[in-house]
């Protein structure tokens, strides 16, 4: 609520609460009115399909960390059985949507614009659809919020509006809240999943809302529905009647009024601060589908296994809505709906404004999917050539975040990251309104996405560089310290030797006169020679060691090393090995296993031969 205090004075806040209670609607800037096309799919009831023969279940279907896998290839699993255990922070499990056998655990194209492979469990359905034990809770009011939140997390529920943010995490955030907003706006053209869900399962949604109310302790609930869904409005109003704290708010049809931030502005006149969350302005928002999933998880004891998917577009012979198991390949769904393929077709996961085209149909439905749109060839105008920006400002007029899209476009083209930050690129919700109206057909959102990815990448690189620098400095310090210690040890050893030598000489001096001074000294000469030779040896060794120490301290020297430098460095490495205190000591002589030694020697020889061959071929 801290931001509320900044936005409102005390009286303003009271007046704001009165206004909300009175049903006032505010405005958000911008917005567009694209053709709705909802009638394609909203005529028929939600169909229930038999379990698909093959399911592809990615480990991670939410925002956060993937869980660790609990099953193995070949295992038989039951419907509702968890397949992964959530990771340490903010993870959610995924469950087997039907009973069957785990065929494979590995990489598979993801339900992502890039279709890059992600860890996926491939499940072959046995057709029995046999449930594991369910744990329905008859009286949820007997449980505390934290217990219920844990249950919701266990059920793997993530925001079903599209962002797939873990619901439990959203609910667990503390802070004083004054409204729970249930988002049934569904402003994106074509999509009718929430519309049908509200029409057919209003009672379940309301029970889910009651549970959410109980958990969050919020007294008042606003259910927002766009005025283009009269049946859904009626169904929800009927289901809510008699419950004081629930109010259905009918909002005008305007894209993107279903965006979290825009809806908050529309219903409460409050603005979620940049980098903030709705709870900062005393609000909590959940999608109607999420409310229904919460109802099923708590009251029926069913984890999140399926969701409503809109199958629409003129390339489908039977468009409509279906209950699709999470993990159902898009392929299977489209076949069910009578997809008529054509060359160079577009298949869009999500709506026409914010969805993404699929490069392959062998990707699964995940928690965040809500629509598969298969337009006919001329149904949605494909983008044509990008023309020069004429600075008409139409984009700025429709931007719901009051950004300056054309300015962002110039900055993104320049890779001017500072400028982009200054123009608040991060506040762009990528709704696509700007690109929709652009007379020059510039794919503005694409520029922003690339710029955002670049900036994120640069940030990660910067962090990594910082760490690398620290580690490099630490290593340098350690090498310096080790060198110092070694030098000290050698000095001590040298002194000890000197002392021993002096003692020996003194002894020799004592014995020499006794052996006779008149002798020519010839017998003592070989002894002197021996000592000198030993000293020379020690000196040579020390010099070599110093050289070796320098060589390791200066590893970059090796990178540019020519063959002769290479032999030198390997010499010095051997010298290092010879020094008794070094960790890298291999001491071939002390190795009792001769065959291992031989193997290593062979490996070295092999590598040398290979290197020689490479150099020869260069």
């Amino acid at each position, binding site marked *: 609520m801290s931001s509320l205090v900044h936005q409102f004075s005390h009286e303003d806040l009271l007046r704001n609460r009165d206004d909300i209670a009175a049903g006032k609607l505010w405005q958000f800037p911008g917005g567009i009115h694209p053709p709705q096309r909802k009638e394609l799919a909203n005529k028929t009831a939600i169909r229930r399909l038999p379990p698909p023969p093959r399911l592809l279940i990615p480990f991670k279907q939410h925002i956060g960390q993937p869980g660790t896998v609990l099953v193995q290839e070949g295992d038989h699993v039951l419907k509702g059985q968890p397949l992964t255990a959530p990771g340490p922070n903010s993870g959610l499990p995924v469950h087997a949507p039907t009973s069957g056998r785990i065929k494979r655990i590995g990489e598979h194209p993801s339900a992502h614009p890039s279709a890059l492979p992600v860890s996926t469990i491939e499940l072959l359905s046995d057709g029995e659809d046999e449930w594991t034990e369910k744990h329905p809770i008859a009286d949820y009011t007997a449980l505390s919020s934290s217990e219920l939140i844990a249950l919701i997390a266990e059920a793997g529920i993530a925001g079903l509006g599209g962002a797939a943010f873990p619901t439990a995490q959203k609910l667990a955030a503390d802070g004083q809240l004054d409204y729970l907003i249930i988002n049934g706006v569904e402003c994106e053209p074509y999509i009718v999943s929430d519309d049908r869900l509200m029409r057919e399962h209003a009672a379940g949604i309301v029970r889910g809302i009651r549970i959410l109310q109980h958990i969050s302790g919020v007294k008042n609930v606003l259910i927002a529905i766009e005025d283009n869904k009269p049946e859904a409005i009626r169904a929800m109003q009927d289901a809510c009647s008699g419950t004081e704290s629930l109010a259905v708010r009918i909002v005008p049809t305007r894209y993107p009024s279903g965006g979290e931030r825009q809806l908050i502005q529309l219903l409460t006149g409050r603005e979620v601060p940049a980098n903030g969350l709705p709870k900062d302005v005393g609000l909590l928002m959940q999608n109607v589908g999420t409310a229904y999933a919460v109802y099923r998880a708590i009251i029926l004891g069913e984890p999140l296994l399926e969701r409503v998917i809109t199958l629409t577009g003129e390339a489908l012979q039977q468009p409509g809505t279906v209950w699709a198991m999470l993990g159902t390949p898009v392929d299977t769904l489209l076949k069910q709906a009578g997809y008529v393929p054509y060359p160079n077709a577009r298949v869009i996961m999500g709506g026409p404004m914010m969805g993404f085209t699929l490069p392959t149909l062998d990707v699964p439905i995940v928690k965040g999917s809500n629509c598969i749109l298969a337009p006919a060839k001329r149904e949605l105008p494909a*983008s044509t050539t990008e023309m020069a920006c*004429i600075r008409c400002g139409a984009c700025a007029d429709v931007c719901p975040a009051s950004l300056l899209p054309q300015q962002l476009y110039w900055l993104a083209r320049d890779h001017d990251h500072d400028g982009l930050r200054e123009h608040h690129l991060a506040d762009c919700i990528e709704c696509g309104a700007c690109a929709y109206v652009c007379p020059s057909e510039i794919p503005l959102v694409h520029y922003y996405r690339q710029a955002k990815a670049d900036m994120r990448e640069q940030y990660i690189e910067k962090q990594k560089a910082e760490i690398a620098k620290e580690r490099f400095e630490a290593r340098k310090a350690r090498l310096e310290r080790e060198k110092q210690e070694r030098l000290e040890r050698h000095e001590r050893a040298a002194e000890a030797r000197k002392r021993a030598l002096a003692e020996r000489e003194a002894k020799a001096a004592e014995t020499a006169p006794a052996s006779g001074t008149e002798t020519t000294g010839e017998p003592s000469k070989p002894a002197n020679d021996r000592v000198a030779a030993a000293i020379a040896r020690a000196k040579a060794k020390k010099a070599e060691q110093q050289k070796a120490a320098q060589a390791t301290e200066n590893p970059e020297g090796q990178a540019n090393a020519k063959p002769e430098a290479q032999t030198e460095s390997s010499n010095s490495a051997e010298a290092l090995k010879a020094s008794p205190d070094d960790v890298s000591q291999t001491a071939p002589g002390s190795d009792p296993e001769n065959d291992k030694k031989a193997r290593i020697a062979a490996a070295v020889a092999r590598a040398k031969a290979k290197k020689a061959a490479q150099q020869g071929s260069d």
Partner: protein
Amino acid sequence: MSFYIASSPHTRQRRTTARLMQLVIVALIPGILAQWYFFGWGVLLQLLLAITTAYVAESLCLHARERSSLSALRDNTALVTAMLLAVSIPPLAPWWVIVIGVAFSIIVVKHLYGGVGQNLFNPAMAGYVVLLISFPLQMSSWVAPVELTGQHLSLFESIHLMLFQYTSEGYSVEQMRMVASGTGLDAVAMATPLDHIRTDLSQGLTLSESLQAPLFSGLAGLGWQWVNLAYLLGGLFLLQQRVIQWHIPAALLASLALLAALGTLLAPDQLPGIDIHLFSGGTMLAAFFIATDPVSAATSNRGRLVYAALIGLIIYLIRSFGGYPDAIAFAVLLANMCVPIIDKYTRPTTYGHPRRKLQ
């Protein structure tokens, strides 16, 4: 089968630059017809010349810049520039005036700055200023409205005049102007209403004396008032089609009207009133067609209000106290110069960033 990959959004409004420019051209038609009716064939001849020059210049530039010329030519922006300049200059000006003007607009003002969307200045108005400064004589000899002369110069005489600078009988535009001021008969060329008032005021006459001239028997100068009304009509069409937003025309006309009213209050005999300012000269053309050029205007709606109000202010100041009878071109160019700073200070507050308190 393969799939088509694209970035969202996957649908578009289909209102291309070319389409917008077409609508602008359609909206210009009433004004052009009115000008043709009141000022004769010269208007259409100038348009023809201007459009031809614009296409030639645009193609040359695109070729030199190694751009695909077809798609760029089809965006119709050069066409609009040419038409705006053609309707701004005297209908019987020599042919090379409009050719030089349009060529300058397209080559220097538009393409040397980087082509569509990159120009700092409104190309048509920059071209106009160049002509006004370079050829003051040719640029100030306007045609007398048909209501005064009774009939147009024939198409043949118009062409003759534009090509050779005199009629088949040997009169030049200036000579005809002299004739007009001397006898009031057979006048083909004469000063514009604004020019007329300026001259009279500088000669010590009062405004009411100046307005006695036959030229002012209507609301704001014969012919001119209707031309302005026709442009107003076209402008309303553009507003209705949402090609332009209301901000620029409204702010421009409001600021000009406000200043004119103030002037009338302070010096009723020296400063022309609202009617003259709004319905004479190029006011409506400027408000709906010239100042609304998106490339050189401010980008945010608040910025556009400031920008257009500034144009209104400069128009008024130059008309009342400056050295030129009309001042659309100078006002627009000066306001163009201010656009970057206007944009800087009128940036809308991004959602979720600190701003004034909500009510």
